Structures are given as C-alpha cells and as structure tokens.
C-alpha cells in the first residue's frame, strides 16, 4: 500500500481551480518534491493531504489517501489522528507557524500529548528529546524558550522537531527553507535528509526551487496551473526534461557555477571588470562613490551598526553586485547610496560631490512589487512622477514620455491608466523600472529586484535590466541574496557580512576562486541542480558543520 495515494484531486476556491485533476502516489519511505511556480497549486495539494481545506469553503473532489486514512471521508476524529501522528507538516515561515506565547518545548509536548495521552512530564521529555535530535544545542534549556528567542534556522528545526515528535510516516514540508538564508537552508535540507535516512519516513517536499528539490528528494513532480506537467526521478528530469515547460523552467534558473553570459557584457567591458579598487583603474568615470559609510540603528545600548565602514565605487555602465544574507546590511547600504537614508558616518558622492538626500540621477528599483507602487494611483501617474517633479507641465509630453517608457520596459501604452493590482509581479517590476528610468538616471540601485518573482519572470526582468544598461549606459548596483542571480548580472561583486564587505572583486574571480572563508561557505551552500553533485557537496558540508 502506498503511503500517499492521490487520485484525480481537484480543489476549487470559488471560481478559481487551484488543483485540477492531479493524481500521484508516494511509497513508504520515498521522497517526492512538488515543484512549480506560484499559482501552480502545489501548496494546495500539501494542505489537501491533511484535509486542511475542511470548513474553509474550498471544494475538494477526488480521493486522497494518506497512511491508510481516506482524508475525504474521514471523520473529524480520524482526521485529527492522522494529523501530526501519521503525517506531519512543516511550514514555510517558522516564526509565524509557532505560537509566540508559549515555550517551544510546551508546544511540542502539547502536540505529543494530543496523540499519545502521555503524561505532562513524559511529553516534555519527548519534546527535549526531539529538539536534541534536530540539533538544538542545550535542548533542555532551549525548550523553555519562546519562538522569538530562536534564530530562523533554529525555529525551523523546532518545527521539524514538532513534526518528528509522534514519529509520523510522512513528513510534508511546504517550502521549508524559502524564508531562510542559503547557509541555513543547506543545514535544514541536510537535517531533513539525515532524518529521513534514520527514520525511514516518507517526504513530500513542496518547493519552487528546483535546486532544493535536487538536494532532497528521489522523485520530482513538476506542476503548472494545478496540473502535473512531468514526473520522474529527480536526476532524470533535471538532466533531460521531456516537457517544454520543464525545460523552460530549468533554463530560467540562474546557475551559480556558470560564468556570466557574455552577451550581457556591459559597456564598461573589460576595463572596469578588473577594477575592484585594487588598482586596475577603469576607463569610465566614477558616478557614485561611497567613502567609509557607516549607519547605526537604535540608540544607547541597543545601538548596532547595520553598515560599518563600507567604501565602494560605481562606474558608468558597470554592474556592481552586492550579495549577502539577511541582516548583512546590503539593503541599508543600497538606501544610503540613493540618499533615502543618511549615513551616520562617511559620505556618498554623486559625480564626485558629497551629497545628502535624494538625487533624481540615482534611482532605485525595489524588491516588493506590491508595496513599491501606490495602489491608489495609475501606473502612468507613478511613472510620470519624476517628470512632474522636474517641472514638466505639458501633459501631452508627459503622456508621450510615459508611453515610451512603458513600451521600453516591455509593457503596452494602454497600460497607462491601469492600477498596480491589475498587473502581475513581473509587470509591476517593469513599471518600477520605467519609473526609475523616467528620471533619466545615471545609476539605478536595484534592491533585490527579482527575489519576489518566479524564476521565469526573474530571467526576463534580469534580461531587461541588462538591455537597458547597454542601451543607456547606466550603472547598476544589484543588491541580492541570491548568489546565482548576482553572478549572472554583475561585473564586479561585493560580498557583505554583518555590515562589512568581506570580499570584493570581478564576479568570476570571486565566484570561482573565493578568498574569504565566508564566501566559500556561502557558495558551498547553494543548492546544485545535479543530485549527485548535491550528495557530494552535502558530504563536504558535514565536516565544517560538525565543528
């Protein structure tokens, strides 16, 4: 008997069909990844396995059988016995998925008691045991901590511990590492792998990241629009996809190990490529320069420096990648470069002059396509802002210019009067780029411009930025956490950690021969698309992780 048996599953929310006639099975102890872009219905499937759609108004058709329980027909009690005991789920955001008011150990114990009727004391002991098992140091003491006292990775471990507490047959992991930094992600994936080896439980992994799937599972099921596109062994599918969509998807995934595509080479070309402040002066003039930037937040004892003594230069036409994990200070640095934040110390020079405050010649493209556009104004108005701010009064000329910009970024002139919510994430990001361009900037700082987008869209936006740079001779600062994307777009790269630049230099040099141990650690943590390579690297990672 299969551990999971899904036949013809259809889930509808109102008029939206999220899952459409999906069937798959998962054998005992096997691992399957549901891979797809946003809206593919993969998470809906995960929720359906535990019957979580009950009572929410969603219509579920088809049959779902998990560990011998017919989820569709089961009574509330039967469902409760399934949930947590036979099939446990790990969620994406470990902070919000744990109750902030209770100690972690208590929460795990509570779940354990629901299924085992164990005594309070035994349940607490079990909680400590599983916390220890997932690698929480000093588990006895830490079990008394509340979620906010844990780091992101520790929280996810705790959530996994909760899942383990009743020794389920199936672990459903819904984007378990998406909210985590790449190094932490690697640790969590390793943990999942180890646990599976040890307990022999089945794993259903839901992810948008093909790399994560490659690291973790045996089989992969690619989904799109609620339907299955392709299923097969993970190695086979990744190496030789049979469906066009899978190919497209794979092509769009940026590779951290591939050198930068020369087609995107910038105007500045080889000259500045080598320039890293090491002496090989570039030919193009410096447009933005940061000297000894420091920025503190908070006051008194709580003060800390988000950015600490950072100096860098950006030359006309080049792309500077700034890469780092969350909390490394890269966004703060980006905001100081454009003048949205004032540095505590040091200065930003635009065209050689120290400058406080914003400068239309230095623009920004933001991360969140939702919050970067005013939802109450048409995109045309938003794009026209820099024009009007400059004093342009001629409506016809403004409209013409906005139309040009819209078309330039791959949108239609007819989009002028539409509101942001009518656009997709990628389109909104294009609007953001158009607005930045409207100011005729010399530099655009892109703060995680593609991290909220699906990979295929990501690739398009990255390509657009490259094109624009070539065409307009823009300098780009590309701030991102995704090492692969940064490598793809950057001429030079700076790696940030705890507010400082630990390593910088030409992109290929940094990626291929990293000098700083932190850079090496980062690169080692990036999931590989090749399962075999992933295994090799996992083994390699275990050694430093053990220390």
């Amino acid at each position: 008997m299969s551990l999971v048996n899904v036949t013809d599953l259809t889930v509808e929310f109102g008029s939206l069909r999220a899952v459409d006639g999906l069937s798959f099975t998962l054998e005992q102890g096997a691992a399957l990844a549901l891979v797809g872009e946003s809206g593919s219905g993969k998470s809906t499937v995960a929720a359906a396995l535990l019957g979580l759609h009950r009572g929410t108004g969603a219509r579920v058709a088809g049959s779902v059988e998990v560990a011998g329980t017919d989820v569709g027909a089961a009574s509330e009690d039967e469902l409760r016995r399934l949930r947590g005991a036979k099939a446990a789920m790990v969620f994406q955001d470990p902070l919000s998925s744990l109750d902030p008011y209770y100690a972690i150990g208590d929460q795990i114990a509570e779940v354990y008691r629901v299924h085992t009727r164990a005594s309070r004391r035994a349940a607490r002991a079990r909680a400590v045991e599983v916390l220890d098992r997932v690698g929480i140091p000093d588990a006895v003491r830490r079990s008394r901590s509340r979620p906010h006292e844990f780091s992101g990775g520790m929280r996810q471990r705790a959530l996994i511990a909760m899942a383990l507490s009743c020794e389920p047959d199936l672990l459903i992991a819904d984007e378990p590492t998406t909210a985590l930094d790449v190094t932490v992600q690697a640790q969590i994936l390793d943990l999942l792998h180890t646990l599976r080896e040890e307990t022999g439980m089945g794993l259903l992994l839901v992810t948008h990241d093909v790399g994560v799937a490659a690291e973790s599972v045996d089989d992969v099921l690619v989904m799109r629009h609620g339907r299955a596109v392709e299923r097969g062994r993970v190695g086979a599918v990744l190496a030789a996809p049979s469906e066009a969509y899978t190919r497209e998807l794979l092509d769009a995934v940026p590779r951290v190990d591939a050198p930068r595509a020369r087609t995107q080479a910038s105007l500045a070309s080889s000259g500045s490529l080598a320039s890293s402040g090491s002496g090989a002066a570039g030919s193009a003039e410096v447009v933005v320069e940061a000297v000894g930037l420091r920025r503190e937040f908070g006051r008194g004892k709580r003060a800390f420096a988000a950015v600490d003594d950072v100096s860098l230069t950006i030359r006309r036409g080049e792309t500077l990648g700034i890469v780092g994990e969350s909390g490394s200070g890269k966004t703060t640095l980006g905001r100081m470069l454009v003048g949205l934040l004032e540095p505590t110390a040091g200065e930003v020079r635009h065209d050689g002059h120290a400058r406080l405050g914003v400068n239309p010649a230095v623009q920004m493209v933001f991360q969140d396509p939702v919050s970067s556009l005013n939802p109450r104004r048409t995109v045309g108005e938003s794009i026209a802002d820099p024009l009007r701010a400059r004093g342009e009064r001629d409506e016809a000329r403004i409209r013409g210019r906005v139309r040009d910009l819209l078309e330039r970024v791959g949108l239609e002139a007819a989009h002028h009067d539409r509101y942001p919510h009518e656009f997709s994430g990628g389109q909104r990001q294009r609007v953001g780029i158009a607005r930045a361009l409207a100011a005729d900037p010399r530099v655009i700082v892109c703060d995680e411009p593609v991290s909220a987008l699906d990979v295929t869209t990501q690739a398009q936006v990255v390509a657009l930025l490259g094109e624009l740079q070539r065409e307009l001779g823009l300098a780009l600062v590309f701030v991102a956490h995704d090492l692969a994307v940064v490598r793809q777009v950057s001429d030079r790269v700076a790696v940030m950690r705890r507010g400082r630049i630990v390593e910088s230099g030409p992109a290929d040099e940094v990626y291929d021969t990293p000098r700083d141990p932190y850079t090496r650690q980062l690169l080692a943590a990036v999931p590989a698309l090749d399962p075999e390579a992933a295994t090799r690297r996992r083994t390699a990672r275990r050694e430093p992780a053990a220390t």
Partner: protein
Amino acid sequence: MSEALVAAEVAGTGVDPVPAASGARQFWRRLRAQRAALVAGALVALLVLVALAAPLLTALEGQDPTTYHPALVDSARGGVPIGSFGGIGGDHWLGVEPQTGRDLFARLVYGARVSLGVALAATVVQVVIGVTLGVAAALGNRWVDQLLSRFTDIIVAMPLMIMALALLAIVPSSFPRPVLVALVIGLIGWGNIAKIVRAQTLTLKELDYVAAARLSGWGTWRIARRELLPGLAAPVITYAALLAPSNITVEAALSFLGVGVKPPTPSWGQMLTAADVWYQAAPQYLLLPAGALFLTVLALTVLGDGVRTALDPRAASRLRIGTGRKREARA
C-alpha cells in the same frame, strides 16, 4: 425601498465606470454584499433625509416644534398629556410633550437635524485635526513628533466631559450653539484618531512607493498629500464610522448635563434628559428619543462595521486557512 435608497446614495457618490475607480467599485461591491450594512445604510440615509426634510414633514403634519399647547396637558397632574398614548392623534402624530404640549413628532424630526448635524460635524472636526496632527507627528522630526505625541497623550488623558463643560461655559452665548457643541466635541475627541493616523503614517512612510516618490524629487508636502493621505483613507473612514455614533451619544450626554444645544432648539439628547423621569407617566416621551437615538447609533455602527469589512479585504477572508498561495507569490 431601502435598497433603492442605498443604490441612489451609491450612485450619487460618483462611481466611475472606468477602471480608475476600481478601488471604489470593489469597495461598493463588498459593501453591497452585506445585507445588514445595506439596511443600516438605508436607515442612515432615511434619517438624514428626515432631518433635511424636517420643515416639510412638520408642515405636512401642520405643527411646529416650539408652539405650546397648554390645553393638551393635564396641569393638575404635573402636565401629563391628555388622551391615550400621550395624545397621539391626527393633529399630533406622535403625541405631545408633557408639561408644554409641544408636538413630539415635530421635535423629533427637528431634533434629528441637531443630533445628526452636530455628530457629523464633530466627526469631521475630529478627523481633520486627528489626521493633520497624526501625519505631522509621523513626518516631522523627533522633536515635532515628541511634542505632538505628548500633546495627544494629554488630550487623551484629560477628563473630556469636564473640559467640555468648561469650554462650553467660556464661550459667549451669542456663538451659535450647535456649531459650538460640534466644535467642542471635535476639539476634545481627536486624540485616538491622531494616534491611529500617526501609527499608520509611520507604516506607510516606510513603504517603497513613498521612497520612490522621494526619489522622484517630490517634497514632503506633496508626498503627504499624494502618497500618504490616500493610504490613510481606509483606517480613517473606518474609525470615523465608529466615531460618528459615539459623537451622537456625546451630544446627548452634553445635553443631559445641560450644556448641549439651547432650547427651544430640540435635540434628542435634550429630549431624553427631560423625558427620563417620565418613563412611567408618559412612556412614549422617553421611548421616542431613546428609540431614535438607539436606531441611529445602531445603524451607524452597523454601517461602520460594513464599511470596515468592505475596506479591509482581510475581514472577508477571515478564518480561511492560508494555503500558502500568498507566500508563494512572495517567495
């Protein structure tokens, strides 16, 4: 009937068929999905209509709110209205007031003008002051923020009825009373809305589109007007919808204390105050203003809830298990 009224009101608000108003259109669609809110809205509209048409309605009845009818009350028994149900009849649709014999229907509909007018005007004053100071505190530097926030704290910490009593006593009586009452309620009741607006503005201020507007080169004033104020609309409307009914009660309370609008101008609070001792001898005298006040507050509250639900899409999707769709989009 009520739905037609609401529809009329909605149409009158200028819903534009082009997508430019899609936000508003969505709002109305969500609002219309709530039957209770519709009924409440219709009731509010009806009340406003009655208040506006007060002279017309009383003319129809053939009475006015100030004429005494000593012959219609029993002087020996403290002035209870003569006749059943407080003297209800063709001449006096809802009977007459004890002691004076003034027409209750006329006083009730004229009272609606004062009660509604004062409450709504006070709400406007509260919103204007609250939004101005809240935005200023959020956008100003540390000192401005400290000063305004402290000031807001003080206003919130003052026993407001007491200040209202004092303020109403200070202003010369030649000042039009209903305007004064509205102003005083407005001037003392803006503390919480300022706090809400400040908090909301601080949130909005951090949004990327505001940063983008700054990068465009706009100044603070323009950003406040174009980028922040529209974003404040939802919480402000929601709060105002809750303030309005509470202001009606405040007006009634001030009348209760004898510092509300001056006689012979009728207001519901004033009627209620005069009537509460008559609950046994002339129950309709108490029930009419109490009922009117109750219905109005109820209708405004339900409408306020409806507006809030319509403005806050989360309210619509409450209790639905997150499927991760939202998160995927972010990831």
